[in-house]
């Protein structure tokens, strides 16, 4: 198996046990549940599918590909600033940076020089460290090709959402597996066509965005977003 090393690398970074802080984010799911707009497994599948096709595919993936291609710190920072500018929701920006910085921190502790270098840059600017950008930087530094980095990023979104839904008590583990199985195929379809990194990132997930904004005001909540 010639690609065993590459596959094992991807499996390690995509593992839900990888301590990159992803467990702290529901990306609007908690708010939608609290507001009664997500009540069952079909709702969860619908929300995750929209996040995958209407946000990850056209925004996070685009940013990741640009960051993965960046050959110097200035370009990395420029992509990160673009990520900041195109994220209108303040809680989403904060969550994205928090998740990205957690990933940076883990990779820096693992001894990845690129992570340490970018962590130093992010330490001087609170607006840096968006998750998709950090994924592009550290996955490349770890040795992932861009297509593999896109795959890990997309899969992390699907598994993160389903895990959040289980912890919120909306679905059980078997329903989570059904959802991830269906969305695995959807992700494969998306990955079959190349990303369009030259375009301004796009997204349209208004209900989840609103849920994140509203959830931010709740005193009692399980997730950061």
């Amino acid at each position, binding site marked *: 198996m010639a690609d065993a090393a590459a596959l094992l690398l991807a499996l390690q970074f995509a593992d839900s046990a990888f301590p990159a802080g992803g467990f702290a984010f529901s990306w609007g799911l908690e708010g939608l549940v609290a507001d009664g707009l997500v009540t069952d497994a079909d709702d969860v599948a*619908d929300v995750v599918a929209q996040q995958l096709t209407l946000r990850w595919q056209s925004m996070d993936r685009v940013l990741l590909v640009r960051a993965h291609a960046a050959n110097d710190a200035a370009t990395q920072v420029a992509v990160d600033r673009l990520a900041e500018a195109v994220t209108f929701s303040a809680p989403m920006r904060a969550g994205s940076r928090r998740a990205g910085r957690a990933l940076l921190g883990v990779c820096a502790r693992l001894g990845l020089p690129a992570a340490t270098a970018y962590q130093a840059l992010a330490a001087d600017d609170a607006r840096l460290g968006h998750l998709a950008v950090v994924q592009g930087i550290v996955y490349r530094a770890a040795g992932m090709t861009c297509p593999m980095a896109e795959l890990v990023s997309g899969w992390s979104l699907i598994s993160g959402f389903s895990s959040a839904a289980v912890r919120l008590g909306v679905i059980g583990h078997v329903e989570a597996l059904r959802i991830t199985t269906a969305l695995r195929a959807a992700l494969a379809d998306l990955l079959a066509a190349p990303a369009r990194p030259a375009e301004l990132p*796009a997204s349209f997930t208004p*209900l989840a*965005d*609103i849920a994140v904004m509203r959830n931010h005001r709740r005193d009692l909540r399980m997730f950061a977003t």
Partner: protein
Amino acid sequence: MSGAATSPQLDIVFRHHPVHGTWLDRRRFRWPYALSRAFRAEGGPAHMLMLIVQTVSGAIQAEDRLSQRIHVGAGAAARVVTQGATPIHRAAAGLASRDAVTLQVEPGGMLEYLPELRILFPDANLEQHMCVRIAEGAMALLADGFVLHDPAAEARPFRRLEATLTVQGPGGTMLAAERIDLAAPPRSRGRRAPFQAHGSLVLATCRRAVWLEAVSEDATTALSHHPGLYAAASPLPNNAGVVARIAAIDGRHLRLGLQAACGVFRRHARCAPPPEGDRALDAAAALHAVT
């Protein structure tokens, strides 16, 4: 409503006069636009001038290439509205309607650009681009929203909607940008399904974060009291203003939501503290390289 895109079909400049208040320094328009006299606006500064932009057909057709340019000079205050909701009609394959709006507000100026909702008909294909440039101390209040409508009541979707909104600081540096690119309206299920009308109200202005957070908190509270809405507000990136995001069960409720957010934004705008100044502009300068 077709037209060449070499120069804007609508080109308006508002200026401030120390005695007479805001006045129209330039009012160039051609097909399909029509303008009547401007008049004093209610709900804004005393010298604010209001203008109703009308179009002959009241709709946007597939071949239309529309372009508007509105400039508000230093200290001037203007409100620009439209005659009513604008249907976006079917486009044959390969055709798209294009609507570009360029807004510029000079120091201390205030622009309210509040067009009525877009009504997307089956097979509509709309490319809509709005860019606002705000100087220090300037404010721009921008509304945008769309509803779906199928005269046959068969829920036939539009073909494509691409909409961009860019907020630029002085010199053209990008502070915030949003892009929607939909091949069809997303169909949600369950209790999310009724929310078919979507809109945003943006107050673009470089101010301190604490003020922007207070505005968005108030707007979120105000929006939470309206039935038929799912809505909230948030500070924009780079301290470039505030956005209220509104999902509604229909156009009437979306209008009510936009009006509610408008009321909150105007109330805060009347007593806004001095502009944010250097910090936001420094952040924006770093963006320039990528944009």
